[in-house]
């Protein structure tokens, strides 16, 4: 009986000392926490993609609470998150232009062909090191889906040999663009026309490589009343700031490579 009592007392005493020390320590060494950080972290999408420029959502929340960052920097959450965040911080939200990733290539299997039959590792970054990928067009989509693997939102699919972004699902986090070895993916405003080609070869070469390659014929540049299209190095580029979605460029394009994705989606 006595030995049990001693054991209980000794262990109990040690436990008590540990508890008292911990209680005192947590009181003495308490660190004031900015409670907004927790609420901000909750309001953010939690994708931890880093598109805001900070190390994940908690990093962004920290910067927001300190006043180093602005509410609209999270492309994943978009306007809604910006509003919630702004409400927590008590500032006005700036509404941004809705953006989306776009693959600037239309070289599907029907439009372009293979130059070599690549059978190596199924990854664009591996394929690109062998003669720049297997496609006829050296600028075009390799279609092995590095971007698909990178996307956290399932917004990219490889359809018929070329990557296609589902703009409904895309959150413009820029991860796919960073991983594309051909730099074909751009984050652009949704409401703008786009030349879905990145081939800078001369027109005759482009014609040989792909049925829908931009040949730099200048027709769209002349047709655009707003000066939104410029042809440089045998390829047309749309300036989304100036584009009004009038669709004239798409009408005159002999290759049909200018797309108005937002309009086609039913707008």
């Amino acid at each position: 009986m006595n030995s049990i009592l001693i054991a209980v007392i000794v262990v109990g005493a040690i436990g008590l000392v540990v508890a008292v020390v911990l209680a005192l320590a947590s009181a003495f060494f308490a660190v004031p926490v900015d409670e907004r950080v927790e609420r901000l972290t909750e309001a953010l999408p939690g994708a931890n993609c880093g598109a805001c420029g900070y190390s994940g959502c908690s990093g962004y929340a920290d910067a927001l609470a300190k006043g180093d960052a602005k509410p609209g920097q999270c492309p994943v959450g978009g306007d809604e998150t910006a509003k919630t965040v702004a409400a927590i911080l008590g500032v006005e939200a700036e509404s941004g232009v809705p953006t989306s990733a776009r693959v600037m290539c239309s070289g599907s299997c029907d439009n372009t062909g293979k130059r070599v039959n690549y059978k190596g590792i199924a990854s664009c970054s591996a394929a690109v090191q062998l003669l720049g990928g297997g496609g006829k067009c050296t600028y075009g989509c390799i279609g092995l889906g590095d971007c698909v693997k990178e996307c956290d939102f399932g917004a990219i699919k490889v359809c018929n040999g070329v990557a296609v972004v589902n703009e409904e699902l895309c959150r413009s986090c820029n991860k796919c663009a960073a991983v594309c070895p051909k730099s074909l993916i751009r984050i652009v405003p949704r409401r703008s026309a786009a030349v879905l080609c990145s081939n800078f070869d001369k027109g005759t070469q482009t014609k040989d490589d792909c049925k829908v390659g931009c040949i730099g014929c200048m027709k769209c540049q002349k047709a655009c009343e707003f000066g939104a299209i410029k042809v440089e190095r045998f390829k047309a580029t749309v300036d989304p700031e100036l584009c009004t979605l009038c669709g004239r460029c798409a009408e005159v394009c002999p290759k049909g490579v200018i797309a108005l994705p937002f309009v086609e989606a039913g707008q």
Partner: protein
Amino acid sequence: MVKQLVAVFLAAILTENYVLSKFLGICPFLGVSKKVNTALGMSAAVTFVMVLATAVTYPIYENILVPFGLEYLQTIVFILVIAGLVQLVEIILKKYMPPLYNSLGIYLPLITTNCAVLGVTMLVLEKAAQDPSYTYVTALVNAFGAGIGFLVAMVIFAGVRGRLETADIPKSLKGLPITLVSASLVSVSFLGFAGLVEGLMG
């Protein structure tokens, strides 16, 4: 004296490696060894806690448990003390060394229940009971060596896992199976150190 300390230190790292020879602390060994950076952070935290825990539990055992004849309560008391200690370290680090807390912080709660730490504090006492020349300082050096041994094992294994990333592994072995197989191979390689320290120190 110094010779004994060096021998104890080397033995703790090579021949008595807590992870690869005694198979203690396998959970963090498998869980946190994916990258060399995190492996280093975790090992640094483990080393720190091992030394600290030994520094506290050794006198508790000698001065409280032995006089009351309560040696059999060693395990439960040590768990209690180590858990409290880790919490205390966490609180203090958070206040005074936020960068260190941010880099070690996530590992500290993991260490609370790390059996390598408990193993060190208990095995050190076992050795002290057998060898009269084994003092408090020897125990601390042994704990430090055990921590460094943990670090060596983690870093080596992080390197092995880095190679596994690019290796063509059969589908049925992907993930944990191949990790366990390679861990056992690393452990076998450490068997080669058997007798090394005795040979060196004569």
